[in-house]
């Protein structure tokens, strides 16, 4: 059952200078950084390059698992297609790239969206590598998020583990019954399996909730809220907003 509480993952987490920061400062710092990157206009590629370098530096300090970052980069693939589509279908004037006439404004707009998304993936990876769900839920409490929202976030995170475990069991059951779960077989049985996956995880979630209450946890407590990291001091805030501040300064005074 412990798999349902995300304990294993928290223990496997590496301790880095970034994980010592208070979670609420980290979340606010990340949002500030992402907004600063988002408002950077396409005409300022140097600022985006700086933001990318800052994100990479923070990710390196946060000891991110670069393989996980590479996996997340698959989210970029649709945006690569977007950049190509913009470059082909965009307006005049055309620019010659490797002998192909591509729309310059289209190319610029598409590449900017792609660059911003990539910077976002690296920056978010730094937060994910350095914080656990309990810490983020505690951070949400300190920034004043309502209790039902925190509870929903905490429970959802826990349900992800439940779903993952139930999904693995279902896959095993399908494999045992119909041999190797090939694509075709997986698709025909898959939709029905998704339905029973939902029912099974609902039932398991109810059992987990009941078990927690029987153990004496106050009703509705998120296990996440038991562990409370230290509150953010001024130093935490200064460090956490530094990346965003760098980008803003570059936007104001930079090229």
């Amino acid at each position, binding site marked *: 059952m412990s798999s349902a509480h995300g304990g294993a993952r928290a223990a496997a987490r590496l301790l880095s200078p970034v994980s010592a920061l208070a979670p609420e400062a980290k979340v606010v710092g990340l949002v500030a950084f*992402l907004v600063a990157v988002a408002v950077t206009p396409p005409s300022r590629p140097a600022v985006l390059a700086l933001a990318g370098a800052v994100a990479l530096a923070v990710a390196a300090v946060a000891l991110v698992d670069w393989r996980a970052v590479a996996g997340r980069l698959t989210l970029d693939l649709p945006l690569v297609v977007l950049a190509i589509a913009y470059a082909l279908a965009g*307006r005049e004037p055309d620019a010659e790239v490797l002998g192909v006439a591509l729309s310059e404004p289209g190319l610029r707009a598409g590449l900017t969206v792609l660059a*911003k998304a990539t910077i976002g993936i690296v920056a978010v990876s730094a937060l994910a590598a350095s914080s656990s769900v309990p810490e983020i839920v505690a951070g949400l409490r300190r920034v004043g998020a309502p209790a039902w929202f925190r509870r929903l976030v905490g429970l959802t995170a826990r349900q*992800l583990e439940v779903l993952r475990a139930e999904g693995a069991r279902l896959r095993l059951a399908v494999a045992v019954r119909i041999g190797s779960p090939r694509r075709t077989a997986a698709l025909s049985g898959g939709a029905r399996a998704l339905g*029973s996956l939902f029912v099974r995880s609902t039932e398991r979630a109810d059992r987990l909730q009941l078990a927690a209450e029987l153990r004496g946890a106050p009703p509705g407590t998120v296990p996440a809220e038991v562990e409370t990291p230290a509150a953010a001091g001024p130093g935490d805030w200064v460090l956490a907003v530094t990346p965003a501040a760098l980008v803003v300064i570059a936007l104001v005074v930079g090229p």
Partner: protein
Amino acid sequence: MHIPDGWVDLPTSAAAAVVAVAGTAVAARRGAAALRDRATTMPAVVAAYVLVAQLLVLPVGFGTSAHLVGTGLAALLVGPSVAIVCIAVVVVTQALVLADGGVTTFGLNLINDGLIPALVAWGLFVAARPLVRRAPEGRLRRRAAAAAGGVAAGVGSLAAAAAATLAFAVGGTDAVPTSVVAASIGGAHAVLAVVEAGLTAAILAAVLRLRPDLVRAMPRPAPVAVRAPEPAAAAPGGVRR
């Protein structure tokens, strides 16, 4: 689909954020009973389920990832108000934990993934419900309900695509003609809507068979007499061929 940062300009994003936050606040108030009820874990299960379902990205279309939205299904399972709040949690998690979708476009994503498909799917299903009820109780009615739910979810996803195109027309970059973007989003979502409808119908059928009490969209009329459970319910979670 998740709108990335920089896809539309900031005034459009800001306006969408105001609408989205207001809509979610109304939904949270309407769904307050279900959300505050400490005994129920349904909203969290639905949010986690949608989060996982949305990871199954279909590589269709120009520049916009198309995936199972799951909002229509969520609305049918827990009602539109709770579904919208669940999607809000999903969208925040995706932006801040998975880096899927932008931070400034949070409002647009909330409208496209949450408000519009949830309300459209629920509205269509409620409109079709009297027809579904005409089917004889049992297997046929379950199938009718699943089909209606599938169509409702598919149309909901088309409505979301239309709203995304509208957002681009209002605040998108002028480097690319809106017609090109509209065609690519429309084409991708035409395929997606069919997939969404099929998956929603199949999942809904399975849930209606195993635990009909979990489907908010099909409140069961008061039982006339105590009936023996159907044979199918005796094997919960069984994957039958």
